[in-house]
């Protein structure tokens, strides 16, 4: 069976599961008793195994299979979670990631069998007998049906716990003299429509008798939430062979194991007793576990709809967003039709209605644009949720206890931006962990808590998304940076001494700069910050640093919400048209030439108490202003961070939605032109990057 067409989906989903596993194992490390977490891990490992198996990735399947075994034992309470287990699990996840990377690159999982890991996992399993013996005794006292666990796959039906309805159905079937069979159906692992096959199996069985109970539940089977086998309790008048033959007649069914079901109250009753008793003793966890089992499937479904990490250039779209789009498109068609009809109706009454139609059309297209933009938006969650794991590993490696606090993971950004933002953020976090945070003894001597804190906060601010990476570490030592810059030959000594603090900090972003005294493999090669800066600038964003020696450092990344379409103010300078992003414009002011003062030979105005430098665009853009210099001037006050500037233009045209077009690499020399746009009449207007002007 050719599965290559499912490769994308497979990669997509396995990354999602991997991320989920990482998060959960991390949570497990914090709270090793949490049944929810354990179940979630078990479920994810199980699904992983199934997926890898379907795709024919045997090594991956083996590894996940062993992981699943370990968790199955943990879930049954036979094995205790400990530090060693967590470490092995993380190694397994890394190995899985490697498989996935290999698959992504070459559609092949690679040759690494990860034998040591598998034996480590088995070691964990073997170890179970010695360590938690105590508990096992206790448990077997409470649950006198240990054979359930030892039962091979073909006896799975014995693990079915009957609910009231099922119990009634079972009793009815027995009293009406039917044979009760336990049945395990194994679907071929190449089967793609498992649910459909299961449905056919159900149909075949129902012709001969009735299905009393199933594991997983019938609902789950229909929703394809099972791996390759499911078990049923069937009541039928027909003999076992006939039932088996009926099931096997369904195509793509690999095997069907059938045996008479021990109706004798004991097994069943005991099983029921077991669950209730255990539930009574340890109440919450088990109940939760049971609930979790049924709800986890739903949960995963929910999570999927919230567009998580993806491969290639796909975006998972919330169906609701698509519905909105669809509605808007139908409105667009209606608008078009009304336009057509008002045009054909002649001039009779057109004037008014025509304008109304145009307005209607305008509002529809604006909404349409917004919705399409939203479709391209994904939460940054997909990149940031790998960071807790990274910080954990760093904490171990650097031997500095630290904690990562994240907020605003749901903040949405354009897909292209989200793809690119991961690396810069990782650099900054590593930077904070390695250079920012002090060693524990230094922290204690400074009266700080031993455990260092790193914060990653994301939030939307107007047309921008701001991501802050903050630590409560040492802060940037301005003098050390100054000296290092001289040493590295980035600046000369005189230059360095003349630099303001802000400017010194900017030196950190120059190529080949690192203040770490020792080069570690965490950071310190000095490639970090300049890469961060160039990457973020390539996304039309900017980085800002705030630091206080001894108290910590904050890196503030500001990114545009979207790259494709913006609201802009169209202006005229000389005889050329330019667009300025509306997001950066604060106000429009009318300035009399008399108000312009000079400070340090730079022109400024005093605007309601704030001194703002002015920039004459005609000079910057090498074109001649058509305005009389003695007349009042129009200034667009633009803002970058907390800096303001007034851009003097000749004329305002108005606000307009513009589509940003790249001008290609041959002509990107001009740093304050961020692109071009095509106006309604086909003319090109250049887009001024106000950030680069300030």
């Amino acid at each position, binding site marked *: 069976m050719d599965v290559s067409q499912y490769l994308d989906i497979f990669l997509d989903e396995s990354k999602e599961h991997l991320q989920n596993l990482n998060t959960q194992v991390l949570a497990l490390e914090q709270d090793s008793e949490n049944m929810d977490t354990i179940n979630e891990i078990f479920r994810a490992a199980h699904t992983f195994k199934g997926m890898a198996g379907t795709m024919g990735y045997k090594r991956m399947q083996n590894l996940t299979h062993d992981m699943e075994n370990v968790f199955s034992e943990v879930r049954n309470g036979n094995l205790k979670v400990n530090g060693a287990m967590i470490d092995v699990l993380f190694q397994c996840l890394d190995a899985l990631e490697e498989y996935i990377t290999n698959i992504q690159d070459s559609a092949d999982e690679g040759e690494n069998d990860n034998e040591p890991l598998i034996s480590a996992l088995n070691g964990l399993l073997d170890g179970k007998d010695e360590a938690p013996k105590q508990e096992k005794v206790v448990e077997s006292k409470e649950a006198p049906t240990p054979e359930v666990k030892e039962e091979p796959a073909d006896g799975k039906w014995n693990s079915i716990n009957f609910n009231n309805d099922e119990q009634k159905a079972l009793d009815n079937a027995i009293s009406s003299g039917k044979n009760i069979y336990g049945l395990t159906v194994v679907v071929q692992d190449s089967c793609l429509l498992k649910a459909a096959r299961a449905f056919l199996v159900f149909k075949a069985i129902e012709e001969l008798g009735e299905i009393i109970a199933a594991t997983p539940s019938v609902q789950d089977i229909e929703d394809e939430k099972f791996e390759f086998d499911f078990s049923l309790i069937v009541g039928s008048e027909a003999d076992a062979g006939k039932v088996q033959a009926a099931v096997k007649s369904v195509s793509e069914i690999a095997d069907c194991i059938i045996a008479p079901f021990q109706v004798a109250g004991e097994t069943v009753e005991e099983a029921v007793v077991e669950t209730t008793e255990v539930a009574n003793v340890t109440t919450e966890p088990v109940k939760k576990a049971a609930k979790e089992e049924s709800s986890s499937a739903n949960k995963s479904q929910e999570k999927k709809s919230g567009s998580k990490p993806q491969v290639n250039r796909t975006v998972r779209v919330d169906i609701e967003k698509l519905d909105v789009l669809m509605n808007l498109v139908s409105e667009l068609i209606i608008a078009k039709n009304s336009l057509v009809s008002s045009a054909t109706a002649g001039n009779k009454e057109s004037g008014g209605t025509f304008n109304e139609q145009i307005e209607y059309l305008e509002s529809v297209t604006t909404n349409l644009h917004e919705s399409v933009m939203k479709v391209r938006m994904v939460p940054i969650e997909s990149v940031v949720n790998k960071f807790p794991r990274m910080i954990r590993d760093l904490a171990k490696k650097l031997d500095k206890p630290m904690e990562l606090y994240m907020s605003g993971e749901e903040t949405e950004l354009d897909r292209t931006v989200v793809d690119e933002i991961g690396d810069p953020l990782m650099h900054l976090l590593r930077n904070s962990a390695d250079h920012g945070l002090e060693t524990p003894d230094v922290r204690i001597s400074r009266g700080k808590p031993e455990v260092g804190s790193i914060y990653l906060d994301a939030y939307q601010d107007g047309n921008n998304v701001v991501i802050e990476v903050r630590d409560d570490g040492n802060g940037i030592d301005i003098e050390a940076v100054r000296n290092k810059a001289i040493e590295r030959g980035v600046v000369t000594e005189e230059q360095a001494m003349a630099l303001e603090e802000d400017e010194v900090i900017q030196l950190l972003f120059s190529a080949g700069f690192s203040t770490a005294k020792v080069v570690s493999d965490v950071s310190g090669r000095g490639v970090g910050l300049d890469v961060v800066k160039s990457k973020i600038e390539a996304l039309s964003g900017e980085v800002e640093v705030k630091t206080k020696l001894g108290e910590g450092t904050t890196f503030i990344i500001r990114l545009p919400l979207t790259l494709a379409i913006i609201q802009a103010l169209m202006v005229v300078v000389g005889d050329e048209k330019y667009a300025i992003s509306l997001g950066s414009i604060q106000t429009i002011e009318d300035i009399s030439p008399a108000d312009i003062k000079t400070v340090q030979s730079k022109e400024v105005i005093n605007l309601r108490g704030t001194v703002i430098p002015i920039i004459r665009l005609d000079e910057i853009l090498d074109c001649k202003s058509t305005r009389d210099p003695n007349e009042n001037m129009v200034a667009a006050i633009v803002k970058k961070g907390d800096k303001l500037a007034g851009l003097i233009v000749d004329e305002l045209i108005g606000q307009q939605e513009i589509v940003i077009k790249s*001008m290609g690499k041959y002509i990107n020399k001009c740093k304050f032109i961020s692109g071009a746009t095509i106006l309604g009449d086909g003319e090109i207007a250049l887009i001024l990057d106000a950030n680069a002007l300030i």
Partner: protein
Amino acid sequence: MAYDISTNVNDIIQFIVVNIGNEQYGIDINYIDNIVRMQSITRVPKVSPYLRGVINLRGEVIPVMSLRIKMGLEPDEVTKNTRIIIIKMNHESIGLIVDSVKEVVNINMNEVEKVSFDNREDSFVMGIGKQDAGLISLLDLVAVLQE
């Protein structure tokens, strides 16, 4: 780039012959995306003088370069024969302004004479092709498009 002549020895390549000043230049047809009439060019500030600005080519914004200025000749005089040759290389488009477009010729790369008369760095010619109509300087687009 496919401009290593030695590897293309037996290839016959089609060139579009254009006039710039009094000379004929050949542009490898494989890199030509389009030929359009002169149209209004939007100036881009603070770029090299030979980059004349950008044009709107069916919704795409494409930079336009003056070959004359790049070669140190007089600035272009726009006539009804002036054309912009749209070159597409490595997924990047750029327009070259030429005085006029003459014809398409087949040139056997075997018979191309490599230019040996100068090793000047600003040489944009990779060889001279001979045709009935005279000599055609074959443009080295990589050199032309380099800054």
